[in-house]
């Protein structure tokens, strides 16, 4: 594994330094980054937002606008070429031909006013001598390779006519169109659902092997790294802090940051117990503190950390980390390790009070549809059937997670429960009252008992309202409290959610994403509600911040006896916070039961597909190409059969009928008539169960 540090490595970054000049000073976005990717190798580059991973990726093919940044040191060598010395014309002939790149947001990455075929042909003909017809033939072949059904039609499509998963496959096809030697993939599956992510990753891996391409894979998701990468680099604050083989870095991380990051994943934690978090914030890169960039957040920091450590090699391995603890001659080492070990691990929460089973909210056969399009008379051309008969009971004091992929109706369900969307049929009963058939006065009274927290704290707070006003606005509306009383209450709420009450005069943009989500939670708590609907509350956050918010939610629930409806797409979050889980597919609940039971032994075939697609840190395995086909069916025309039949590997006679939720063992409900006869989970070899990360203190291998 050490042999990759050779001069002829397809990607060889040496001590790269790059700055963004701003009025406040130069932001040192990349500060001494060295990365190599060997021939045919898949190398991961992981880090949280702002760590510099995307900037590094873009700088490799010089994609950053020339006047917004400057390279102040180091070398970028790609396939033996010095990229810093190439002219714009030479760069153009490298890009797309020798080095291809795919990006994060497939929804915006294709030109909306140009047909797919034209966009593909354009790139092909730019680099290869081909007639229009030859380019078309090549494009068709590429689309077939990406398992796109009916490629002839897709060539004539515009991007908006295709799903995100399809678009990402097209972008991969475009990237592979000229058989690149190097592929740079910048979070290519982050915006996709997990089942689609599994398909796209498998295709990418397969194609890269065929063409012998080297891949630099940028991601924030450690579990994806585990599935895909041979080696990995971890970035923090513009520097690589640790690099080594995937096994080494994920299962025995050496750098305190890597350790802390992995510990904050809900996947590895005891359910419903606080997650270890990383204190403090990433340093400002305009004027970073001298010495180790992680020093102020590190449990192991000691005197020597005021000096910037080099990448130190751990003994006997090819991996290295930017930490003085790896220096066996460091006199302070033993003391620092001892200090780190004793550092605060979060105190466990007391056992939760038994849920009394009294129902707080009932959703009965809820249906919601939206009109789409208009014919010449202005009547809707069709309907999107967002919810197709949802039944749920939410018990007081429990956390019910609603999990599913985009388009499954989980957010529509949340909005109907909040009374924000009128159902087409069915009822939402809160505390015995039918929400959508209530006189306005009573609705107002009732509304204060259920509140909502949305995904994006950036856009859900009014940017021109100081935070204390935003937090207590519900009190003004519902109780007409004086400004003075509201300020006092705001300070109290701020303390409850872990915000500094002295910062309440500030505006939302002065807070970080995690702090803004705390503000949104404080606002939701202002009226002392019984029920919180949490709509993807941590999906926009980095894992270390997600850990803080999840801890906060767990604590608040106990403190105030709250009931949560937790909408998410993230199975590891479900496992961590939920008492029960409802799995949704195409506007229906397909499986409902205790969260641990459902995740450990899913019964409905869709739940199984979903769980099979979720990458797990503890599971180093091949990507399963088995579920390659199929996307969510079009929900303007509902199937008359079981909704999952076309994608189901267990479909048989009897599946042509619509299915109903029926009782199954372990207090479960499953919408599948065959659930009792399906093979036991796991129903296929899920790769070697492999190692479970233990995350030791740095000494274990360093002193070996």
């Amino acid at each position, binding site marked *: 594994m050490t042999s990759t540090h050779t001069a002829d490595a397809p990607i060889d970054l040496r001590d790269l330094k790059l700055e963004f000049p701003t009025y406040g000073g130069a932001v040192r976005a990349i500060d001494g980054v060295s990365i190599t990717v060997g021939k045919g190798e898949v190398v991961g580059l992981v880090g949280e937002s702002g760590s510099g991973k995307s900037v590094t990726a873009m700088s490799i093919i010089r994609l950053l606008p020339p006047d917004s940044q400057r390279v102040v040191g180091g070398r970028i060598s790609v396939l033996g070429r010095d990229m810093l010395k190439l002219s714009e014309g030479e760069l153009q002939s*490298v890009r797309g031909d020798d080095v291809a790149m795919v990006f994060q947001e497939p929804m*915006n990455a294709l030109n909306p006013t*140009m047909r797919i075929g034209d966009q593909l042909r354009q790139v092909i003909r730019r680099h290869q001598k081909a007639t229009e017809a030859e380019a078309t033939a090549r494009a068709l072949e590429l689309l077939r390779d990406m398992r796109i059904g009916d490629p002839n039609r897709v060539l004539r499509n515009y991007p908006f006519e295709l799903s995100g998963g399809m678009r990402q496959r097209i972008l991969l096809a475009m990237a592979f169109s000229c058989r690149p030697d190097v592929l740079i993939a910048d979070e290519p599956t982050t915006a996709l659902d997990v089942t689609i992510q599994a398909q796209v990753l498998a295709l990418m891996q397969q194609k890269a092997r065929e063409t012998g391409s080297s891949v630099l894979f940028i991601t924030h998701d450690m579990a994806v790294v585990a599935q895909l990468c041979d080696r990995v680099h971890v970035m923090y604050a513009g520097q690589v802090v640790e690099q080594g083989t995937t096994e080494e870095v994920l299962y025995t991380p050496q750098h305190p940051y890597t350790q802390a990051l992995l510990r904050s994943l809900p996947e590895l934690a005891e359910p419903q117990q606080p997650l270890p978090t990383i204190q403090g914030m990433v340093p400002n890169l305009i004027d970073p503190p001298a010495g180790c960039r992680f020093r102020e957040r590190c449990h192991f920091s000691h005197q020597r950390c005021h000096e910037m450590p080099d990448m130190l090699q751990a003994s006997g391995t090819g991996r290295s980390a930017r930490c003085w603890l790896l220096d066996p001659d460091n006199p302070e080492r033993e003391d620092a390790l001892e200090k780190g070990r004793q550092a605060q691990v979060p105190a466990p929460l007391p056992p939760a009070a038994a849920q009394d089973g009294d129902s707080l909210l009932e959703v009965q056969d809820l249906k919601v549809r939206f009109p789409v399009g208009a014919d010449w008379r202005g009547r809707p051309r069709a309907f999107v059937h967002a919810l197709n008969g949802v039944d749920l009971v939410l018990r007081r004091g429990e956390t019910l997670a609603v999990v599913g992929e985009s388009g499954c109706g989980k957010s529509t369900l949340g909005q109907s429960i909040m009374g924000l969307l009128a159902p087409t049929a069915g009822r939402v009963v809160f505390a015995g009252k039918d929400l959508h058939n209530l006189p306005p006065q009573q609705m107002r009274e009732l509304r204060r008992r259920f509140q909502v927290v949305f995904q994006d704290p950036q856009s859900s707070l009014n940017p021109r309202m100081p935070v204390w006003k935003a937090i207590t606005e519900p009190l003004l509306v519902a109780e007409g409290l004086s400004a003075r009383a509201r300020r006092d209450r705001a300070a109290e709420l701020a303390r409850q959610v872990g915000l500094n009450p002295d910062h309440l005069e500030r505006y939302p943009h002065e807070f970080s994403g995690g702090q803004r989500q705390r503000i949104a939670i404080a606002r939701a708590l202002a009226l002392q509600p019984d029920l919180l609907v949490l709509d993807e509350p941590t999906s926009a956050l980095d894992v270390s911040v997600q850990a803080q918010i999840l801890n906060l939610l767990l604590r608040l629930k106990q403190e105030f006896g709250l009931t949560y409806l937790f909408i998410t797409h993230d199975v590891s979050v479900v496992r961590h916070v939920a008492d029960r889980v409802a799995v949704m597919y195409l506007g229906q609940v397909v499986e409902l039961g205790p969260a641990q039971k459902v995740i450990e032994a899913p019964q409905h075939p869709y739940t199984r597909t979903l769980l099979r697609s979720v990458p797990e840190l503890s599971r180093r395995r091949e990507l399963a190409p088995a579920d390659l086909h199929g996307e969510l069916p079009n929900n303007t025309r509902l199937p008359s059969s079981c909704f999952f039949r076309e994608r189901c590997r267990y479909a048989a006679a009897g599946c042509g009928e619509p299915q109903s939720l029926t009782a199954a063992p372990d207090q479960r409900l499953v919408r599948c008539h065959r659930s009792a006869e399906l093979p036991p989970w796991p129903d296929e070899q899920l790769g070697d169960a492999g190692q479970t990360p233990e995350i030791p203190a740095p000494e274990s291998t360093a002193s070996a």
Partner: protein
Amino acid sequence: MSFLYVIRRRLILLLLVVIGVTIITFAISHMIPGDPARLMAGDRATPEIVQSMRTRLGLDQPLHLQYLNYVGSLLQGDLGTSIRTGRPVADDLVRFFPATIELAAVALFFSVLAGVPLGVASAVYRNRWIDQVSRTISVTGISTPAFWLGLLLIMLFYGRLDWLPSSGRLGGDVTAPPFVTGMLLIDTLLAGDLAAFRSALSHILLPAFTLGFVHLGVVTRQIRSSMLEVLQEDYVRTAKAGGLSRRQIIFGHALRNALIPSVTMLGLAFGDLLYGAVLTETVFAWPGMGNYVVQSIHALDFPAIMGFTVVASIAYVLINLLVDLTYMLLDPQIRSVG
């Protein structure tokens, strides 16, 4: 949304606009002081003559009947008779309206032809000298009063250089082409009279430039800002990562998407140009709607004012229909989704 649906919705809107405009102008014409019958009969007419005039014009009938009469004749293309000129208003409009449309269209053409490349260059070479020049031009355009610019141009190109005529639509040395569209640039070509075409062209250059210059600034700014926005888009990055050339990226990918928001603005701008033409027409003695309407207002010539208002409103709605359809052509998503 289908094309048919958009057209249908626009036509309903057109109907509502016409009803609204006629009611409002009709109401105003009866609220303000001034008696058309007395005006028409002249200063020295006896009360009897005025009264008979009133009967002849239908002014003695109840208000709603007068309105219905007006709308009834409107539907037959009869806009009434101008009090001032004594000719049917429809005839006057046919005579003067094409001149204004022609002026506005040439001005628009000029401002787009010059403004789009300037805006694109400005965005692509952001903060370089070409951007500075183009921004100076657009600020100058936006802040220069048209009548002042017009006078300057007349002084230079007519007074000092004597290259271009200062007034009118056609020189005295050529004969006017037969009336087809009323727009001389088209009619002279249809008649095959190149000398007359050249004369018409030389007459329209200065007023069209004057009128278009203000608008040029608006176009340049709009294109510049939407180009800057589009150049930041992910798909431009994709094109760049695919190794496409600058030319392919700017013209093949960015420009079309940048034009989409500009099209809406062009529709609104054409309306502005029509009304803005009034001042320019005065400076260049251009025999268009501007002069006609101003004189009609002085004379309290309500049939003429109403006729103009109705026709201008219809033109405005139709132009915006055209804009919506162009929009659908440019943006495939609007074409098929709704």
